[in-house]
């Protein structure tokens, strides 16, 4: 057929722009009248200096229909191949209980809030975070846990800064060495290297048998418990030697393992860090997941990140709110030893509800089953002596 005349094609109807933007065009007109202007462009000309304005439209194409964009993203997601991953290294597949997935992760009543600065109208997630802190404190055996950090590696870096700050506060000769056991997760070691250098911290990476307490002027030692390659070691002797040399011990650890293993606090560790990802949070190609940190009561002022605490309201009733806020970067500015503000609240809430859902016995059963499979597999693989 020979085309003689062209015409516009029907426009999609499920477009998003007018739903994302609150005021309808009629409202915009009325609002412009209120502020005494004729057009949106006149407002922009008045508000934005002329010499910085973009002289062309954004080259992002026009807005798309919702079902078309969704279909395109489906196509993208299908290009990812889901293998069964036994890689570990701090990331483990797990079951997100459907009741948690639908009612927390996929629920705007949980995901649309900001940080709980107005505590009286944030008691729900403050309670969930307090439960997270209680869970971490209990499982790690260290009494004071914060309301999450960004990931395990940065949590370890925060612990390193904390060791330095505590060592400085204690007076005595300056200790700028930090020892990292080489069987920590490699990404943790790499982030520590990034973070140590500008702070002037000398990082020593090696086997814990090689620690030179006298020569390395250590403010802290980081071990992974269980180690990145799976070994469960008794760090009791290490803790003793480190403490005798005035160094703190940080244990990067795994909450599920701790339902069966002696907690780091029991062994004498001063700080525990780790990820709560395997408590019901999807892998997500690396995040977001809630990291955790717990420590001894005496180090509460050096603890980075947000801390939920119990107080009371005007009627004397117990009520939750963010505690010790003067520790935080927005107050301390260049005196701060951490810059963390936003953490991983939604994921911490999920992990906390995972523990509430399963309870101690349920968590222990999950851990025992995982361990039993590992034992079975080990039995199948090794040579006989």
């Amino acid at each position, binding site marked *: 057929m020979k085309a003689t005349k062209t015409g516009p094609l029907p426009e999609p109807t499920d477009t998003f722009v007018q739903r*994302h933007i609150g005021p309808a065009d009629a409202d915009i007109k*009325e609002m412009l009248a*209120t502020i005494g202007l004729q057009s949106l462009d006149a*407002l*922009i000309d*008045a*508000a934005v*200096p002329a010499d910085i*304005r973009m002289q062309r*439209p954004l080259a992002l194409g026009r807005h798309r229909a919702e079902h078309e964009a969704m279909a395109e993203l489906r196509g993208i*997601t299908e290009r*990812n191949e889901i*293998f069964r*991953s*036994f*890689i570990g290294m701090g990331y483990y597949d797990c079951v997100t209980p459907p009741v948690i997935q639908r009612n927390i992760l996929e629920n*705007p009543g*949980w995901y649309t*809030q*900001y*940080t709980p600065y107005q505590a009286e109208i*944030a008691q729900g*997630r403050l309670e*969930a975070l307090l*439960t997270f*802190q*209680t869970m971490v404190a209990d*499982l790690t055996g260290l009494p004071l846990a914060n309301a999450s950090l960004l*990931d395990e590696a*940065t949590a370890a870096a925060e612990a390193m800064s904390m060791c330095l700050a505590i060592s400085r506060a204690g007076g005595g000769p300056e200790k700028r060495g930090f020892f990292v056991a080489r069987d920590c997760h490699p990404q943790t070691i*790499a982030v520590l290297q990034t973070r140590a250098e*500008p702070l002037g911290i000398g990082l020593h990476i090696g086997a814990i048998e090689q620690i030179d307490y006298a020569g390395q002027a250590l403010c802290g030692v980081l071990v992974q418990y*269980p180690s990145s390659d*799976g*070994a469960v070691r008794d760090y009791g002797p290490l803790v003793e030697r480190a403490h005798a040399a005035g160094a703190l011990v940080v244990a990067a650890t795994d909450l*599920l393992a701790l339902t069966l*293993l002696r907690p780091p606090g029991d062994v004498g560790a001063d700080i525990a860090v780790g*990820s709560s990802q395997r408590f019901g949070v999807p*892998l*997500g*190609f690396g995040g977001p997941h809630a990291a955790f940190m717990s420590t001894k009561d005496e180090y*509460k002022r050096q603890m980075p990140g947000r801390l939920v*605490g119990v107080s009371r309201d*005007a009627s004397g009733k117990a*009520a939750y709110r963010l*505690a*010790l806020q003067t520790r935080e970067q927005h107050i301390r*500015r260049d005196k701060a030893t*951490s*810059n963390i503000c*936003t953490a991983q609240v939604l994921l911490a*809430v999920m992990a906390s509800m995972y523990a509430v859902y399963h*309870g101690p016995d*349920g968590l222990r059963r999950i851990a025992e089953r995982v*361990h039993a499979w*590992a034992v079975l*597999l*080990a039995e199948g*693989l*090794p040579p006989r002596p």
Partner: protein
Amino acid sequence: MPGRYCSQKACRLGHDVGREPFFDTLRVTPRNRSAEKVMASAKERRVNLRRFEDGAIGISLDEVTTAGDIQTLLEIFAGGPPPFSLEELAGGVQAGFPAAFARTGKYLTHEVFNRYHSEHEILRYIHRLQSRDLSLVHSMIPLGSCTMKLNATAEMYPITWKGFCRIHPFAPPEQTRGYEELFKQLEGWLAEITGFSAVSLQPNAGSQGEYAGLMVIRAYHHHRKESRRDICLIPVSAHGTNPASAVIAGLKVVPVACDEHGNIDITDLAAKADEHRDRLAALMITYPSTHGVFEEGIRQICRVIHERGGQVYMDGANMNAQVGLCRPGDIGADVCHLNLHKTFCIPHGGGGPGMGPIGVAAHLAPFLPGHPVTHLGGKDAIGPVSAAPHGSAGILPIPWIFIALMGGDGLTKATKVAILNANYMAKRLEKYFPVLFTGKNGRVAHEFILDARHFKDSAGIEANDIAKRLMDYGFHAPTMSWPVPGTLMVEPTESESKAEMDRFCEALIAIRGEIDEIVEGRMPRDNNVLKNAPHTAVSVTATDWTHPYTREQAAYPAPWLRDSKFWPAVERIDNAYGDRNLMCTCPAPESYA
């Protein structure tokens, strides 16, 4: 006792799994089959294992492990079906740990971990907690600088698609082509929006973006053999995270003054930049300013820094006022972080997750963060700033969908409407609360600051009292006392409708009336609706009512509350008491009585 020590069976596959106790992870040194063959079989069976540098193979088991998985793993190592069954294996082992390692005490004994184990119980517990939180499902949250815009359901949908959420961060690249494409497109879009040449998606929070950006600048100076450059100029109006990030990046902070309009004092800036000329590393600047104004002098500010060898770091907290109108890269910034959880619709999650990718100009691109596990980044890349190579990759479909659905035209309109909404609200409220800062044409950008300081003398009322009283009207307060103490900073975003903004304005106007009653002596300064706010259902239904206003005035001060009322769960909280009596774990149930 670890199983393998007590096994009596002799067959097995002959690989070395080491001697130490383990929980869920084995390090296996293949003996009867090469590691390459094992890895090849694994790939064939669609299984990912960890490869150590010394040729050993790591296997970590997890909650979803099945008998089929164990069988598959044994077959991968045996090169075929092993000569024994799983049941036979199970007969010879006993799990558990030697006494030195085993946990003995009880844990998670608090009631909360022992009460909600049936699905009805936990479902109701989750919803009970949710009902105590005011969120965007109730009303606008006009937090200045925080950008509480719509988190559309369509944007949230894909994050639980299994193709996005069940991928291990260290899965080999041939399995993650979809993510690769997503990143590439998103990086390209963000580069176009910011006017930069490269983007790193690794920083997993705004603070991390600041850190990464400053580290990139630092690496650039070092690369040019100018490692003496360690001074970071930061205006006094900056968010506290800026100086904290600078210090952690090894820089020394020198504050720069602001003028009475809240703009950077360019004379002081030039003086400080001159004073530290040889050591100037960077300026950190937020644009539009933290005071909600597009500073006229921004180009000149960038020039002052560049002429003295420094780099300009733009804090992207207010990027939502720039999209489609102007670009950090064009203005003169060298780095900018983007709060994807502000401008690009990732929800705030009640305090995270955030995402803080950075865009950089071409000369800084080689220094963007790398990652050792996946070999991300070139030879000049700074080390990783996050555990995962692409930060919180799992939530990146959210900004992808947002940008795809809005297009260039929709994004630009959104920015314009965000500015309109702020100017509209400022206009409606200025008669009741003075608007602190405006640009030279009397307009604000996407947010504005309401002054409440004068009520302290006239009525004994502080910004905090207004914030608490707003709760009785069903609203979350604006940003309190930042960047100016005693003020409220309002940011409506483009997503709020006129009706919702009008409702919020009416609440604030009504509160102004309540303050006037105190000013005029008709209400006492210590016992009034503001000082006693918020009012709970328990307090307004108490038998004794000792306040000089009615219960109705306390709880239903506006007509819309008759239709829908959000009840604060507790009365005003005593912060100081909690800090004096620090308790950061769940209290015993009796304390709630």
